[in-house]
C-alpha cells in the first residue's frame, strides 16, 4: 500500500484479462466509496462498462471482502474480481 494520496486498484481473473489491467492507481478523492470507484471506472467505456452491474463484481478493500458503501482512504488497496471458483 502506498502512503501518498492514491488508491491502488487490482483486478483478477476474467476482469484482469478483459480489462487488460492487473493494477492501476487512482486519486483518493474525499468521500469516494468502493462502489463509486467501480462506477467511475465503468465510465471509461468499452470492456470497462461491464463494471457497472452487467456481471457480479466482488470487492475487497485491504484484502477484506466489503460492500460497495465502504469509504476509501489514501493508501488503500482495492480489488475487484469475479465470484471466486477455487477448491
Amino acid at each position, binding site marked *: 500500500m502506498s502512503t501518498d494520496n492514491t488508491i491502488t486498484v*487490482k483486478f*483478477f*481473473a*476474467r476482469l*484482469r*484479462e478483459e480489462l487488460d489491467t492487473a493494477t492501476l492507481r487512482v486519486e483518493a478523492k474525499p468521500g469516494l466509496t468502493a462502489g463509486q470507484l467501480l462506477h467511475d471506472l465503468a465510465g471509461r467505456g468499452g470492456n470497462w462498462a461491464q463494471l457497472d452491474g452487467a456481471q457480479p463484481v466482488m470487492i*475487497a478493500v485491504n*484484502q*477484506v*471482502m466489503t460492500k460497495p458503501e465502504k469509504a476509501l482512504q489514501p493508501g488503500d488497496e482495492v*480489488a475487484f*474480481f*469475479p*465470484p*471466486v*471458483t*477455487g*477448491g
Partner: protein
Amino acid sequence: MIRVQQQDFDPAEEYRVLRDSGSGTGAIATFTGLVRDSGDLKDVTGLFLEHYPGMTEQVIEGLVHEASQRWDVREARVIHRVGFLALAEQIVFVGVCSAHRGDAFAACEFIMDALKTSAPFWKKEITGDSEHWVEQKAADRDRSQSWE
C-alpha cells in the same frame, strides 16, 4: 498450517503431521480435490488457477480460526495449488484432526465448502483449443451458506 503454492503436495506427509499432533487425537478427516474431466467445458486438459496473494492466506486463516471455534480442532492443514494443473493433478488438500470423529468431519467439510466460496481463487478451464473462466456454481454458494 496454510500453504498456497505451485508445486504438488503429498497428502501422506500432511497425514503424518496430523497424526503426530498429540495423544488426544482420535479422528483425522482429510479431503483432496483433483482436476476432473467434466467441468463446464468438454475435453478439459487442465486448469489455470489464479489467486490474490496475501488475501488468500488471510481468508483461509480466518476459516480455520472459525472452524476451531465451532468444533474441536487439534490441528488443521490446508494446501491450495495455483498455476497450470493438468488433468488428475491434485488441487487442494484440507486435513483436520480432532478428539472426535464428528468434529473432524464437520470442520474439514466446513473449511472446504467455505474456501470454495470465499477464498480468492479463480479457475480457468483449458481444452485443446480454448480456455474459459469457470463461473461460480449456485450449489457451492448454497453449501457454504448451509453452515451459517
